[in-house]
C-alpha cells in the first residue's frame, strides 16, 4: 500500500506571529517557517505504518513556494520515500489544494491519504474533508489512533466528549489530531540520506488546477490584550464580585 502525506509549510509554532500594520495578514518576512505540526504527526504515523509492514511507500506532497522543498526534505529525512512539490507562489486555499491532491491521488493510487486535521496558520480544517468529497472516498477525521485491518482502516476519532471509532474502506482519507503520536526528530544520517531521495517539482497547471483565490480576507487583528485580574480577600468577596459582573 502507498500512503500520500500532504505537508504544509507554515509559520513555526514557536514564533509569536505579528499582524501586518495594514491588517491584511500575518507578517511572514524573516520569520522561521516549519512543517505544520499536524502534518508532522501524519508523516510520523505513515512511517510507523510502514515500519509495521502495513505500507510500502510514503509519498510526501506540498503545495506552496519553492521554499516548501525544505519542508519536504524534512519529511524525507523523517522517513518518507519520495516527494512532490507543486510549486506556486499564490496563497493557496483548501479547495485548490484538495483539487491538486485529488489529481495526484489519481496518478499515484494510494491506499491512504493522511494529512493534518488543519494547518496552524489559517486553521481552516477543510482540506481533508474537501479531498474526501472530491474523491468520493470515506474520511476519518481527527484521528487519535489508526489501525489497518485488511482492506479497511479503523480510525478512532477525537470528538466532543470522547472517541468515536469508524471503519473505512480504503482508499480513504485520514486527518490526524494532536494525540495520535509524537513525531520523531530527523537524525543527521537520515537528513543526509534524504538529499538523495527524489523530489519532483510540478505546477498546479500540470494538474489542471487554477489556484486563484476564491476567498477575500477582510481584516486580520491581534487578539485583545488580556485585562489584569483582581485579588479578593475571601470566597464571599469572590461571589459578590462575580455577581456584580453578572457571571454567577
Amino acid at each position, binding site marked *: 500500500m502507498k500512503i500520500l502525506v500532504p505537508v504544509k509549510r507554515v509559520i513555526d509554532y*514557536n514564533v509569536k506571529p505579528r499582524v501586518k500594520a495594514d491588517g491584511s495578514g500575518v507578517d511572514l518576512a524573516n520569520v522561521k517557517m*516549519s512543517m505544520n505540526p499536524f502534518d508532522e504527526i501524519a508523516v510520523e504515523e505513515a512511517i510507523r505504518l510502514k515500519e509495521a509492514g502495513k505500507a510500502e511507500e510514503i509519498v510526501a506532497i506540498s503545495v506552496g513556494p519553492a521554499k516548501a522543498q*525544505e519542508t519536504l*526534505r*524534512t519529511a524525507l*529525512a523523517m522517513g518518507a520515500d519520495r516527494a512532490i512539490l507543486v510549486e506556486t507562489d499564490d496563497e493557496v486555499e483548501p479547495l485548490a489544494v484538495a483539487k491538486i491532491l485529488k489529481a495526484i491521488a489519481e496518478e499515484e493510487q494510494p491506499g491512504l491519504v493522511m494529512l493534518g486535521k488543519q494547518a496552524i496558520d489559517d486553521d481552516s480544517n477543510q482540506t481533508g474533508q474537501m479531498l474526501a468529497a472530491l474523491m468520493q472516498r470515506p474520511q476519518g477525521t481527527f484521528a487519535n489512533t489508526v489501525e489497518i485491518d485488511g482492506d479497511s482502516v479503523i480510525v478512532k476519532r477525537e470528538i466532543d466528549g470522547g472517541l468515536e471509532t469508524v471503519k473505512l474502506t480504503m482508499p480513504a482519507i485520514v486527518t490526524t489530531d494532536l494525540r495520535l503520536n509524537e513525531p520523531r*526528530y*530527523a*537524525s*543527521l*544520517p537520515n*537528513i*543526509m540520506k534524504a*538529499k538523495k531521495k527524489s523530489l519532483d517539482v510540478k505546477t498546479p497547471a500540470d494538474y489542471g488546477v487554477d489556484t486563484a483565490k476564491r476567498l477575500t480576507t477582510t481584516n486580520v487583528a491581534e487578539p485583545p490584550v488580556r485585562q489584569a485580574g483582581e485579588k479578593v480577600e475571601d470566597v464571599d468577596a469572590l461571589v459578590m464580585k462575580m455577581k456584580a459582573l453578572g457571571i454567577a
Partner: protein
Amino acid sequence: MSETVSANGMDSETFDQFIDQLERYVRERLLPAEKEVIANDRVPEDILSEMKDMGLFGLTVPEDYGGAGLNTRQYAQVVRTIAYAAPAFRSIFSINVGMFNSAIKNGGTDEQKAEWWPRIAAGEVACFGLTEPGSGSDSAAMQTFAKPDPDGNGWILNGTKRYITNAPHADVGLIMARTEKDALPKNAHVSAFIVPMDTPGVSVGSADEKMGQAGSHVADVMLDDVHVPGDALLGGETGQGFRFAMQSLDNGRISVGAASTGYARRALDSALKYANERQAFGEPIANFQLIQQMLAESWTEIYAAEAMMADVTARVDRGEDTIKHAAAFKAFASEMCGRVVDRVVQIYGGAGYLAEYDAERFFRDARIYRIYEGTTQILQLQIAKRMLREYANM
C-alpha cells in the same frame, strides 16, 4: 575512501536542517529532562539512545566511515547548540567527536580508522587517558608504562589515569603510556594505545564528586597487566602518542569555548525571563537600569565570543595554525561564561542562591570551563609564548 575530514564539511542546506532539528530537540527533549539528569546524576537511557540515533556521536567522523563529516565550524555550532542544555548532554559524546576522533584522524592507521570510526560513530563511548595522579601535560613524569609482551603478542600496560571524563561509561579508551624508561625530546617516550574498556585488567574507580555538571562523570582508570595486541598501538609506531594528543588540543579547546558560549546564552535567556517576571517596587526588575546594564554587558560578551568562534573555526577549516586563536577563544569564552553566570545569579537576587532556581546551577556548572582543556593561565602562557616567538622572528 577519503581519509581527511573535508574542510568544506556538510553542505549548508543539510546542515541547517540538522541544526533546526537539534534546536528543537534541545528545547523539547533535553531542557525538560534536565531535572531528571540532576536528580539521578545521569543522562536517561532513552535520551542517550536518541542522541546516538541522531548521529551526535559521529559528527566529525568522515562520511565514508559512518559519520557526518562536519567541518570545525559546523562541529562548533552543534556543540554550542547542545550546550544550551545541561552540560552532561554534551559531555557524553564530546570525547568521541573531539579528542578520540582527532587522534584517530591524525595518527590512526587505515585499519584503525576502519575499525574505530564506525564504532564511535554508532555510539560507542570513548574516553581519553592522558592525566595521571602525578602528571598532566608534563609527560616526563608519566608513570603509566607499556612494555612489549615477552611472548611477542603486543603490549602490557600498567598504571593509573586520573580525571578521565566518561570513564564509567566508556567502551574504549585512548591511553597514553610511556614506552621508554627515560624521557626523550619531543615526548617521544610516550605512545598512545587504543584499549577496549572490557579488556581484562582495566578497571574504573567510582565517579568523583564534583561541584557541578551533574550527569557527566569523571573517574580514575586503573590498568593492571592489561594485554593489548600489537595493532592497539595508535599509528603502529611508538613515540608518537604525545604529538597526537597535542594535535587534538585545539579541537578540544574550541569545543569548550563553544560550550561556554552556548551555556552563557542559556543563562542569559533565563535571566532575561526572570527579570521580566520578577517584580520590585511595583514593576519588573528589567525596568531598572542597573539590571539592564548586566543584561547588555552579558549579551555583548556572548556576541564577542560567537564572533571569535566563527573566526577561529574558519581558520581551522582553512588549515591555518590556530594554536593562539583556539587558546584565546577558549580562555575568553570560558571567562566570559563565568562573568555571565555570576551576573545571572545577581539578577536573580536571593532566588539566585537557592537550589530551587536554575541560576546557582549555571554558576556551578560553568566553573569547570575555565579549567579543563587548559586553564586560562596555561592558555595565556601559550598565547604570550607564541607572541614572543613571532616577535623574535620578525
